């Protein structure tokens, strides 16, 4: 599962101060070569072309390298070479903490170890189905994040068991599901939704808030499930959206039927999870209007 940004993890633990975090990021930016500078150094683009790309970046979330290709300044092979060079020269946050004498190498190593989380293991069969899907990276990330967060927050394991297509999800139109949806706007807009029956949502709220289930009303149950999805969305965005692209997430939107998900999202895939508390679905889709726009463009 995607980790928190290492600097924020250390800040939460009180091991570095806010100023040390900001200084280390500034130093990282100063020392790590930018793609544009490397492209100029390699004679792939001129300074004028770099300025034109920077200008375009002001009005779009696209990355420097992608724009350089789109504007015909470099080839895909040249971009791959530049990304490779950037990786070789990159200094990591932890390395710079040591360089700046904010932490010793031993402490950084120890904290990096505890910062790491173990990778989830999916069944071979499910993994084969995911890998053949065009959005396999997003599905893998989502499956991993949901399973781990469910276990961590609610102390009950949730196993990803099945991947469903839009048509298969349509079959749940009559099931009495409540849903929450969040849209994440970035280079590609995504709608993440969760669907579950009332009883499971009440269990989620009861465990999340540490409150007796009898005290949980329906509104609180849906709110808590939406908040669980909100947390999933934060980790998901960090995992699938490139670091140099900005994104914006919407507050959760709730509904009392499953059709709201299929109506508002296109190109949907549904991840079915099973836990001892019941079955729930997390769906990944594209916003309807964007789906139609992108298909009209073709």
């Amino acid at each position, binding site marked *: 599962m995607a980790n928190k940004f290492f*600097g924020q993890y250390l*800040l*939460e633990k009180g091991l570095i101060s806010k100023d040390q*975090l900001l200084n280390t990021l500034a130093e990282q930016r100063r020392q790590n070569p930018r793609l544009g500078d490397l492209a100029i150094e390699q004679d792939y683009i001129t300074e004028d072309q770099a300025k034109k790309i920077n200008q375009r970046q002001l009005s779009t979330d696209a990355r420097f390298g992608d724009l350089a290709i789109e504007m015909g300044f470099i080839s895909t092979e040249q971009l791959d070479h530049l990304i490779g060079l950037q990786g070789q020269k990159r200094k990591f946050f932890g390395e710079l903490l040591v360089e700046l004498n904010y932490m010793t190498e031993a402490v950084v190593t120890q904290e990096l170890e505890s910062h790491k989380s173990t990778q989830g293991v999916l069944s071979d069969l499910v993994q084969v189905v995911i890998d053949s899907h065009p959005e396999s990276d997003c599905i893998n990330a989502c499956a991993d994040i949901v399973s781990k967060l469910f276990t961590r927050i609610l102390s009950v394991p949730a196993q990803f068991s099945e991947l469903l297509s839009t048509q298969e999800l349509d079959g749940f139109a009559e099931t009495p599901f409540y849903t929450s949806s969040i849209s994440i706007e970035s280079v590609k807009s995504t709608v993440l939704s969760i669907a579950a029956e009332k009883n499971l949502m009440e269990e989620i709220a009861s465990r999340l*808030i*540490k409150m007796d289930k009898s005290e949980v009303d329906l509104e609180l149950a849906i709110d*808590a499930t939406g908040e669980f999805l*909100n947390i999933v969305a934060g980790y998901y965005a*960090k995992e699938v959206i490139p670091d140099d692209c900005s994104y914006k997430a919407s507050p959760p939107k709730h509904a009392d039927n499953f059709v709201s998900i299929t109506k508002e999202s296109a190109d949907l895939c549904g991840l079915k999870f099973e836990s001892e508390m019941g079955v729930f679905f997390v769906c990944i889709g594209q916003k309807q209007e964007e789906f139609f726009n992108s298909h009209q463009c073709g």
Partner: protein
Amino acid sequence: MHNKTVLICDDSRSIRTITRRALSRHGYEVISEACDGREAVDKYLEHKPKFTLLDLVMPDTDGKQALKEIIKSDPAAKIVILSSLGSENDVEECLKNGACSYIQKPFEEDVLLRVLDGIK
């Protein structure tokens, strides 16, 4: 007695409940709650709490805008971001704009208390 008043700003009733319960158990006084960014700014100005816990993704005015407005009116405000977003850019932007610290959800109770206790 030390001033341990807190304003909780989050559009999720669940998060407000969890946070209020955790803080109340440890001697903090939750003096008010807000469920969107506009209300967060208004309630901050009304109550002037010692600590403000601020979510980023909220309806109407979002948390980033509320942070800027609160800091503009009171540069000494002690604001801790409590958000599901946790990218390097989000953390850096909020700290640069005056937040004291940043906690990513889901959070453990002891993390929240350690962060608040550590703020001078």
